[in-house]
Every structure is written in structure tokens, then in C-alpha cells.
């Protein structure tokens, strides 16, 4: 691919220092987002999806710190930027939409105040111009009668409408990269369909790079071109969405697909992953998935799996990926005799 990535994370480690110990929230995460490309970040709760976004924008809480690695945005390492310049990146260059649209809007200010403040600041224009921009962007996300509704307060809007307002506010600054953290999780399915439609339209129209964080595999399939699967603070698999969804190579990705009930196929019994998502204080050694993996062998508990690269940009972090022949809907068998234990 000739395109250059707009955002590139290289071997990022983010730790949280808590009373009960160090939480290794990101443990060597590397991935990239191309210019104008929607990329999915998928995983269960506590796998480091949101921490990735917060590390990128440097909005981690006080006890969290990105201890090593590079986060390169348009050729600049964000981790080296002084605070003042970082403030110009947030919002203007990289915008973020959060999961809960109610807590992202201040209930005591009108929508117009909350939107024009940001726009006037970042786009260096007068309040009057900012208001025009705000109305126009509300119009774009399908809020009817935007001129009158902009003077309403957040509680006068429904959940889906609030999420549209946040999208409008984020996009009014003309960012190059949008980070959407579970943007539709709090919404009903029919409203989710509306909001997803808007996100998809705007992303294509504005040529935005997008990092879509979600646990919903349906949403990912719908919107993204490439996807990164997270588990326990690491990227276990990444590649093109079609490739991964049709032919997952990591046992975790495979198990994730097999454990969701399907609308198309009749599954009598769901495949389960035994145990729970690992806590990241004292995470499992070696491959972090090994205690729950049915194909795990001795080496998995000892050595961190290397990343195997193949195909078109496909990466899999598993010791046994070559021996495993996983297909959605088909049980794979690991020929244990054929596994060569490396030292």
C-alpha cells in the first residue's frame, strides 16, 4: 500500500499504578490507521480498547502513564509534544465521541453554547460564525429545524439525538481522525441503525480516518475496512475485516465468533470460552489467552507469541497459528503430535 498511515502506534505500553499493583493495560500494542480509512478496535471489556484511545489523546487519568512506545500522528510523535501543542491536536485534529451521550454534554448549558465555544476556539472565528457552522453541522447529521433546536438543552433531546449532536460537534472542527468509543452501545437497535448510517456517511464524505472502538462484531462488519482484535491489553489479530470474519486465525477471534448467537445459522449450543476476561494486574504469563485456550500447549504459558505476518497485512499473535485450521462454523483440531515445541 502506498498510502501513509495517519496514526501509527508502535509498541505502546500503558500502565496504571493502583494500590493493589500495576495494571498492565496496554502491553506492546502496535497498529495503524490509514488516511480516510475506518478501522475497528474490537474486544471485550477490560481488554484495553478505551485505554488505547485515551493514550492516543493523552487523556489518561493521573495514575495512568504511557511508559514506552511511540504514537505517531501525521509524522509527529504525540508522546513528545508539549501540553500546549497537544491541546491543539485534541478536537481539531483528532476528535473523539464517547459512549454515553448524556455525560458528554453539560446539562446546564444550551447546545449552542456547548458547540460554539469549541468551534470559535479551534477555528478562530467569531461566535456568530461559529453558530452558523454549528447549525450547518447539526443539519448534516439529520437534526431537523437545527436553527431553533440549537437553543435547547441536552435533556430536551433523546439519546440518539444527543449522539448526533456529539458527532456534529466533533465534525464541525474538521478533524482528520475520529475516535468513536462505543458510539452506539447505549442506543436501541433502530436508533443504532440511524446513527451508524450517519457515521458511515460522514466518514466517507469527509474522508475521515476513523478508529471505531466496539465490542459489537456486527457494527464492525458494517463499517470498518480493517480490524484489530484486542485481548488482555494486546492485539492478537489484525487484518482486513472480510479476511478475519471469514477466516479467523487466532483461537480467541475464532471463539469470539462462535460464541455469539447468529441470526442466520441455527446453533444448538454456543461455543464458550471457559473462565473470565483476565485481570491485568498479574496477567497470565506467555500468551495472555493461554489459560482459556483449548489449543494451548506448554510453550504458550512460557513465551509471548511472536507476530506472524502474512497475506495482505494480516498479523496473528499465536504460537500455533500455522497448525490450526480455523473456519467459522467448523471445529478445528490441533494435531498435538505435529506441534514442534520450540525452546
Amino acid at each position, binding site marked *: 500500500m502506498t498510502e501513509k498511515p495517519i496514526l501509527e502506534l508502535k509498541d505502546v505500553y500503558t500502565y496504571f499504578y493502583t494500590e493493589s499493583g500495576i495494571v498492565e493495560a496496554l502491553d506492546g500494542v502496535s497498529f495503524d490507521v490509514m488516511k480516510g480509512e475506518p478501522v475497528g478496535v474490537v474486544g*471485550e471489556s477490560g481488554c484495553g480498547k478505551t485505554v488505547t484511545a485515551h493514550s492516543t489523546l493523552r487523556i489518561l487519568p493521573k495514575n495512568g502513564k504511557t511508559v514506552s512506545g511511540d504514537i505517531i500522528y501525521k509524522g509527529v510523535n504525540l508522546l513528545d509534544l508539549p501540553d500546549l501543542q497537544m491541546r491543539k491536536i485534541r478536537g481539531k485534529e483528532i476528535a473523539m465521541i464517547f459512549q454515553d451521550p448524556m455525560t458528554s454534554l453539560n446539562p446546564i448549558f444550551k447546545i449552542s453554547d456547548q458547540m460554539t465555544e469549541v468551534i470559535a476556539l479551534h477555528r478562530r472565528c467569531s461566535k456568530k460564525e461559529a453558530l452558523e457552522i454549528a447549525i450547518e453541522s447539526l443539519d448534516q447529521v439529520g437534526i431537523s429545524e437545527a436553527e431553533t433546536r440549537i437553543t435547547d438543552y441536552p435533556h430536551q433531546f433523546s439519546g440518539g439525538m444527543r449522539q448526533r449532536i456529539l458527532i456534529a460537534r466533533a465534525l464541525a472542527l474538521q478533524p482528520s481522525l475520529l475516535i468513536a468509543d462505543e458510539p452506539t452501545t447505549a442506543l436501541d437497535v433502530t436508533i443504532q441503525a440511524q446513527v451508524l448510517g450517519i457515521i458511515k456517511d460522514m466518514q466517507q464524505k469527509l474522508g475521515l480516518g476513523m478508529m471505531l472502538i466496539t465490542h459489537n462484531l456486527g457494527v464492525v462488519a458494517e463499517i470498518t475496512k480493517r480490524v484489530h482484535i484486542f485481548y488482555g491489553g494486546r492485539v492478537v489479530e489484525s487484518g482486513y475485516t472480510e479476511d478475519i*470474519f471469514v477466516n479467523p486465525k487466532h483461537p480467541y477471534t475464532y471463539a469470539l465468533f462462535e460464541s*455469539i448467537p447468529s441470526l442466520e445459522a441455527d446453533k444448538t449450543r454456543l461455543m464458550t*470460552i471457559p473462565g473470565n*476476561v483476565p485481570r491485568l494486574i498479574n496477567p497470565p504469563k506467555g500468551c495472555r489467552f493461554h489459560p482459556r485456550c483449548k489449543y494451548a500447549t506448554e510453550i504458550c504459558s512460557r513465551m509471548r507469541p511472536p507476530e506472524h505476518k502474512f497475506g495482505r497485512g494480516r498479523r496473528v499473535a499465536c504460537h500455533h497459528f500455522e497448525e490450526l485450521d480455523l473456519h467459522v462454523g467448523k471445529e478445528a483440531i490441533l494435531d498435538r503430535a505435529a506441534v514442534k515445541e520450540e525452546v
Partner: protein
Amino acid sequence: MTTTFEEFETVDLFSSWDAKTQPIISIHNMKKWFPVSQQSILFSRVVAHIKAVDGVNLFLNKGETLGIVGESGCGKSTTAKVTVKLEEPTEGSVYFKGIDIFQPMTREEELAVKRQLQMVFQDPYSSLNPRRMVLDLIKEPFDIHFPDMLYEEKEARVLEILAKVGLEDYHALRYPHEFSGGQRQRLGIARALAIHPEVILLDEPVSALDVSVQAQILNLLHDLQKDFDLTFMFIAHDLSVIKHVSDRVAVMYLGKIMEMSPTGELFRKTGHPYSVSLLSAIPRPDPRIKMDRIILEGDVPSPINPPSGCPFHPRCYKAQELCSKVTPDLEEVEPNHYIACHFPEI
């Protein structure tokens, strides 16, 4: 160990009920309106009603799973709460094994009804008292329903039920905060199951859980249903979960049942325009599926002032003048397939 509690039963209420011909639960025209009052300094007066449930008719047959699906605020949970007698209905009646559960009854009779109707709640974090040990939490149903039972027997039964839901003996001496979300939901299920009810109402039991844990709980529920011969009313907003667990599905919208049919039929021959749009709104986890989506305009209207006629007509792609005037009844269009629509798709 015996699995029945016949020696402890004091009343015989349900002798007239015949499992072969009668449904175990039938709900007739149930309404639950919550008053909205306006307060002045001295007086408060009722200015409107939130019509949470507005005329629901449905039935559950013994041993089946009825899935109830709908968006937030459509009255799913209120229906469940009235059905287990946690709320009084404003109008209408609920029959359990042929008995109207809201008729005046003695305390013994009431306990006998409630013992057989149990509920599992959505949020496993807030539905367990954080100050009580698991042993006490699961023993409580026995204390209420079988006060004469020996302590040793109660304890033995608690351990038995913990094993059934996939937990260990030593978990009995722990407190809720020591458990993960999935384990807490197992505790919630254990509490409901402890006194061997006939019917369990599951109110969004897996929606707070991660997918890998969700699959564990869904499989567990499937096994328990077979082992204990249970009848489930399974409430969820996720249609793929509903499809997986249910024998029949009821689709709710603004306090009314829009469509009720066997699960396969609902997905093959979807009848109500609302069900059609709901099905098409779900993002499929397969990038190869490209579908023409029906995107509904606007939001769900407020249940305080629902639209006249069919509640779905302002958002419906098939709506005609008739729809805004006459409320369609839930009619049996095909055997066992009920639809409340003037212009159904079949």
C-alpha cells in the same frame, strides 16, 4: 436428594389446572399505567399517565421459552414485573395455572403462587445485597417459603444449587463483590432456582455481560431448563439472543404486542412492519452480507401520549389513514402466528 417440596406444601391451589390443554400463564388485556403528578405547595394532582403496558395479551405454555423483544421503554420489564406480582396491574388479569393471581388470597396461597414464579434481574451488580454472604443470599428464599425446614437441609440445598449453576462449595462463604459479572448472574439464577419454581422470568439476563461470558450463561440456562423442566419468559433487546433461546417470540412496541409467533416463523415470514424494520436494523457480523436496510425515522414516541390508532403508524412505511384511527387487534393470521397490523406483510 428430593427435588420437590411436597412435604412443605400447605395449600393445594392448582389442582384444577391441566398442563396439556391450558397454558401455564395467560395474560389478558393487561394494562399498567404509572401516574405522572404535578406538585404545587399544597396539592399534587395526576396530570397524565405513562402507559408502560397498554393492553397486553399473551400466554406461556409449560416447558417452553417465550422471548419478549423490544426497544427500551416498550414495557417488557413492566410486563414481567406484573406477571410475578411485583406490581399490580391497572387493568386486566394474569392467570397462573388457571388461578387469577390478583384475586384476594391468604398469605399461604400468595406464597404458593410466588414460590412458583421467580425472576432473574438484569444487573447482577445491584440485585445482590453486598453485605450478605452468598450462603445467606441463596438461603433467603428457603427462609421465606419453608421456615420449618432444618438449617442443615437448607445449607445442603444451597450447596446443591450452587453446583447446579457451576459454582463451587467454597463460593458460599464469599461476598458478592468477590465475583465477576458472569458469576454474579449465576448467583442470581441460583436464587431464583433455589425453591424450584415452575416459571422463571429472565429480564435481560445477559445484556450486561461480555459475549464470551454471555455464551456460558445462555448454555447454562438451556441445561437448567431441561434439568428442572422450567418455563422461561426471556426478555432481551438483542434479537440474535432471542432467536437462540426462544421457542416463541413476542415483539413489543410502546406497551403493546405487535407480533407473536413461533421463532422460526417470525424470522422466515415476518408479518408486522415493525418486526421487519427491527430485523433489518441489526448489524450482521458478516461483511459479506449486504442488505437493504429499512431505517426507521425518528424516535420511539413517548408512552405518556402514544399515537392514536396503531402506536407504530408515525414511523411505519406502510401506514395509511386507517392506521392512525383504528387500533389493530392482535389477530391469529396463521395458526399460532399473531399480528396486530391492518396491512401485515403476509
